[in-house]
């Protein structure tokens, strides 16, 4: 693992955390803020925290929205990254990349939001969860969620059941933060690197 991994850089936070996590796994990655910077990349990590609308506007301004959709190697969207790969978000009525054919909804008013902390994930499917037991806890921080669908590869419960992870072809998304989820998170990143 080396420069073949790119991290989408669109000023939406937590890039340092992702670089640190890859560093702990003994690897590295470089940043890409324009499609041209994806030349030679085999894998893409699409992190993100914060508000959907400015994030999507930044991606559209640089052309990275198309590049992420058209990337043929494995792509891992984290938190807001996963949500931006879905359909329209209730957060600022923001359009998404429609890689996952689901809208992004806000948690109901009876719940404390953000959904913040360690929650267990279950009904795990697919290569990202290899070696990770059912009901492992991952760290979540989000106010919006992707509903369960055929693309869902991990479930989580907070007031209702939502997609903790989803896969569509070469595009993977996780709602939690693997880079902040201790050993289990490191295992998931290792699984992604090994794809």
């Amino acid at each position: 693992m080396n420069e073949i991994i790119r991290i989408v850089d669109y000023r939406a936070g937590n890039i340092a955390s992702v670089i640190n996590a890859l560093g702990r796994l003994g690897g590295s990655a470089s940043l890409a803020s324009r499609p041209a910077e994806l030349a030679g990349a085999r894998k893409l990590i699409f992190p993100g925290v914060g508000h959907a609308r400015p994030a999507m506007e930044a991606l559209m301004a640089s052309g990275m929205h198309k590049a992420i959709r058209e990337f043929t190697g494995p792509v891992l969207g984290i938190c807001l990254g996963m949500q931006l790969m879905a359909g329209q978000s209730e957060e600022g009525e923001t359009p998404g990349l429609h890689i996952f054919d689901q809208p992004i909804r806000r948690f109901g008013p009876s719940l404390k939001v953000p959904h913040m902390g360690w929650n267990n994930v279950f009904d795990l499917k697919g290569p990202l969860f290899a070696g990770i037991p059912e009901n492992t806890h991952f760290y979540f921080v989000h106010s919006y969620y992707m509903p369960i669908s055929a693309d869902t590869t991990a479930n989580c419960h907070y007031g209702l059941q939502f997609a903790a992870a989803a896969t569509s072809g070469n595009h993977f998304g996780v709602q939690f933060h693997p880079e902040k989820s201790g050993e289990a998170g490191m295992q998931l990143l290792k699984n992604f690197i090994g794809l």
Partner: protein
Amino acid sequence: MLTKRIIPCLDIKNGRTVKGVSFDNLRDAGDPVELAARYSEHGADELTLLDITATLEARATFVQVVEEVAAAISIPFTVGGGISSEQQVELLLSAGADKVSVNTAALLDPGLITRLSNAFGNQCVVVAIDAKLQQGRWEVVSHAGTRPTGLPAIGWARQCCDLGAGEILLTSFTADGTRGGFSLDITGEVARGVSIPVVASGGAGSPAHFFDVFTLAGADAALAAGIFHYGMVSIGQVKAYLKKYGVGVR
């Protein structure tokens, strides 16, 4: 199920942790990076690093500590202490902090909460509220507990929530340092009164105190310093106790 979080707090002065630490096998008890890594191994769900210095040189050292801690651990951490501007927050977040806590600066300029929330997302904006029981009512105090503000704690907490805070860190200055348990009344009032997570702080002395603040007051997380640093109780012991009595922990 979303679990309750246990958060050790490290006070950092001139790049070193202060308060006694009595862990076995620590090479350097004053090294925040080693201590952070140790707490992470012991099952801490998050960490808080508090900068208790005020000089500019010390601030630069603190940013370096944040960078080193971020590289060493893979759990989230909050940083606080003297934060008053967007520039400071940007620096700390890009150094690898996950959340920042603001306290006195937010009381002086409540709009800061909204600006930080808009710029960085509310998930990283913690408002620290220091409350003291004064003649039967819980009042907000500022400047490290030295100045009364006249504001009722519950009113200020609700206002912080409306202004865009993502979390409240509520410290009872009445209970802090007593080891007699968290202040359940004000913690419960705030936890029930806002729609964002509430971290309880001040007064932890035993595993039962954590059980009480989670089950009776409804706190989402609990922060402690002394009892963990001095090795009176370990994070593992607190979690084992909570698990035994049916409170969900990681």
